[in-house]
């Protein structure tokens, strides 16, 4: 399930679905993703993550989605404007994602339920939400649940592929080996199955994903490979060229996604929560580091270093807290959970209060944490910063602190 949504503020979009076996739209079969102002792409796939990427990524793993009968999209949590630019269900069993067979475009059909939403156009939903619980529900026609067309497509592709492999094996075999070729046709053909699938999956990872098929094929490939080797050994034969080519293609197919990932053909690592940020990739530039770190705040940090007292204590969002302590001799009260130790960090609930208008409670929190300063990061491009309420509700701290410095990205406030 994939949809593109453009919003005008920070919110969460939510997806509900039901299945033949488990009817009803409820929280058990739902997932949400953070939406930030601008264009967001939300992708929800089987046992994978919910992500809104292009502008931000939200790593959440979900339950398998299966074949949905109904789909409900909650584009936002409050009244306001949004545009649903595309929304589609992609069936993951296809080896090649032929759109007419493997894809169902929700925006091409009319939603069965519209709640608190103005429906504006037929090919996109450009809307104004009237209440705090806007949603759209689509019912997917029953014939889209039929899998015979998908299997027919897969079988046709595999027959074409197997023929190509047979040709390849014939070409690399010696005359002597050709005589024995019939002994190897079956295992060799099957050995090519997974690499082929893997290649197709890697190339089309943004359009479909099938972990169950992937896993089954891998297990089958490995078992057949081992069986073929055992068979060879039992017959007194050894690693001939056919088996070697089979091995070469199998192993190369298995490691191909690694290469495609580094060469930038795959946007996200497809097998689990491997952080893309840890790896070099073709096309990544210094800009990524510049935009998502403290390097562009160097000038602001220099000024803050001159104004803040050495050894002082400040509060900021988590990301900015780390940026500051890595540069200046002042100390944070908002580190990650695993870097905290008792009594000197801000609780989650306290953070919510600080972002509210409750001045009295705010002061008690400030006293408890012995805060001297608050640093607000106004950067909207840094996704590490943008998620925090401290970076958004700038005005709510005016009652407890005076502004000492206003920089391009960072503001320094001194507690009154």
């Amino acid at each position, binding site marked *: 399930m994939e949809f593109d949504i453009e919003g005008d503020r920070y919110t969460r979009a939510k997806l509900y679905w039901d299945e033949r076996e488990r009817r009803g739209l409820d929280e058990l079969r739902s997932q949400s993703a953070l939406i930030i102002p601008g264009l967001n792409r939300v992708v929800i796939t089987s046992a994978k993550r919910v992500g809104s990427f292009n502008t931000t990524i939200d790593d959440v*793993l979900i339950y398998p989605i299966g074949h949905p009968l109904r789909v409900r999209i909650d584009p936002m949590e409050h009244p306001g404007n949004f545009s649903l630019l595309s929304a589609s269900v992609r069936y993951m069993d296809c080896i090649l994602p032929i759109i007419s067979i493997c894809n169902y475009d929700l925006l091409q059909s009319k939603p069965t339920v519209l709640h608190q939403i103005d429906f504006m156009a037929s090919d996109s939903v450009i809307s104004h939400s009237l209440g705090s619980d806007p949603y759209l529900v689509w019912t997917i026609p029953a014939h889209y649940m039929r899998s015979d067309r998908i299997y027919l497509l897969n079988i046709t592709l595999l027959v074409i592929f197997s023929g190509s492999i047979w040709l390849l094996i014939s070409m690399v075999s010696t005359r002597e080996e050709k005589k024995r070729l019939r002994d190897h046709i079956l295992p060799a053909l099957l050995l090519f199955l997974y690499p082929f699938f*893997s290649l197709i999956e890697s190339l089309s990872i943004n359009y479909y994903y099938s972990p169950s098929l992937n*896993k089954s094929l*891998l297990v089958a490939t*490995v078992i057949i490979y081992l069986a073929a080797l055992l068979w060879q050994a039992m017959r007194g034969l*050894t*690693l*001939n*060229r056919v088996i*070697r080519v089979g*091995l*070469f293609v199998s*192993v190369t197919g*298995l*490691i191909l996604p*690694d*290469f495609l990932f*580094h060469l930038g053909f795959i946007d996200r*690592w497809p*097998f*689990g*929560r*491997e952080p893309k*940020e*840890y*790896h*070099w*990739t073709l096309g*990544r*530039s*210094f800009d*990524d*580091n510049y*935009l*998502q*770190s403290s*390097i562009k705040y*160097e000038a602001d*940090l220099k000024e803050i270093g001159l104004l803040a007292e050495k*050894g002082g*204590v400040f509060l900021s969002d*988590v*990301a900015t807290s*780390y*940026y500051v*302590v*890595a*540069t*200046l001799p*002042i*100390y*944070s*009260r908002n*580190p*990650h959970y695993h*870097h905290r*130790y008792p009594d*000197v*960090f801000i609780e989650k609930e306290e953070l919510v209060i600080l972002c509210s208008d409750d001045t009295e409670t705010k002061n008690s929190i400030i006293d408890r944490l012995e805060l001297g300063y608050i640093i607000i990061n106004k950067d909207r491009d840094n996704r*590490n910063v943008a998620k925090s309420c401290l970076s958004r509700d700038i005005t709510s701290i005016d009652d407890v602190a005076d502004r000492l410095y206003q920089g391009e990205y960072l503001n320094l406030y001194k507690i009154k």
Partner: protein
Amino acid sequence: MILDALQFYIHSAFFLFLSGYLIQKLATQWCSQSSCVRSGWCEILVTSFLISILLNAFLVLMASLIGIGLHVTKYLLLAVDFIALILIFIFRERGVKFKISRYISWKRDDLLLKIIIITVFIAMTFQGGLLDMLADGWWHMSYAAQMVQDDSLFIQRHPLLGGDIKPVIYPPLWHLQLALISESSGLSLPIIWHFIGAINAVLFLIAVYLLTLQLSNDKCTSLVSILFTLFIVGGLSSYLRVSPWPGNASYIVLFFAFYLTFRGLDEWKNQIKLSNPESPLKTLPYQLLFLLSLTFVAMVGLHGVEVVLYLLAMGAYLLSISVLLPEDQLQDCRWERWALSIVLVCCLLFGVILALYLLPGHIESVFSGARARSPYLNFIFPLLTVLYLLAYRFLSRYFKAIAYFRLFQSLYLLGLLLILFLIIDIRHILDLFFPEYIGRHVPKDSFDQFHNRVYLPFWDHQLRGAMIWSGVITLILGVGMVFIRMTRMNLFLFATSSLVLLTLTSPYFFTLTSFLIPLPSVYRVHLLLISPLILAVFYRQLFSWNDESLN
């Protein structure tokens, strides 16, 4: 940023390479022609790095103890460099002469290596080590920043929170290098962290290259192995952007330690062949042994865990050659086994003494905890497995003598499969492929059927990426290749891959390893799944079409 980059690279050349190079040069001049081990530019580069960071540590430690401050270190280092230069000039007629041809070579393999290294260096200068996500690197930067602020190795305040420094238990060797560069250049830690990624990435590639070359004696395999290091996610070797981390800096030293071990063993074997085999100690390559001991000190100072990884890998290798090598080859490598045993025992003793000195409370809590209590299966099962493996050699000799060898082999294999079935958690393996829940950094704990407390890692903490799919396939290849061709490289890869397999899938081996490595870090054993080497060797052997040993 270009000026920052220039400034950084000049300072890092001074702090991370120059003094090490000069001392190395001096040592080469000092030793006689015959006893001196010749080195190429790759060894010189990594050795310079190793000596420099240790010298920096020594000077900073002295400066901090005396109280003259971190900022004085650069002047002390300048003085050391100056003295080294004078000595090099005085002894210029002695030892091995400097030859520019050792650095500038137009041979195809060497040229390709240099092209790869330079390309990676340039690419990493732009991509950098400063991750575009909020990771623990910032904690390390704040630690180094605190050293600069306190002008000492011994920080006075918690780097993040400003309070008690007791929660900060981390080897400071890498942080002090960053602090020195920052203090001297005036560059902020995030900028240093960004650029230092290029240096560490290149050093790691060179260390991998050296190890592969030493084991395979084939430049083509070595070149392919560094290409795979760049691309293969399995085993997490392609984590180049994480290379500024202290742990990753320590990986450089770990691979260099492996290289030095095998280089030392080869040099020694050659010397023994050439000279009197009755007095092998006289021919020991002491220069390499000294360097190896420096790598242990560096690994302890950088991250600590890698010393244990070295110990485990070489222990597994020793066990592998003892069990798998045919009788005639086993006799040939008796000195190798002897030397490795000595190194491992020394390393173990050194580790125990250090742990007792540095972390007495931690050791006590580990050994008094639930995983060390009755019925002691976390000790018993791994020990019995190792004993069973070791028994093969003795039992096979006996059964060969009474002509029941084939029957014995079948029964032994059956017994081994039964043991593996008992100690490996099949559900845990299935969880890798069919995940049911999402895990955390800290391993999952449970009780086995004997009410014995055991641990296993959550695959989600980096391991799923390390294993699926290139990791899984290289694990199978790493374990399997030795049965097709019995080379030293394959034996080493078999040893490390088997170790990874057992540690990550057997709760008993995993829990036992947690007595040597802190529990949340045991998953790092996956690093010993050296996927790039396995793949390089696999492809090389696969395309040896005319090699009779494969046909």
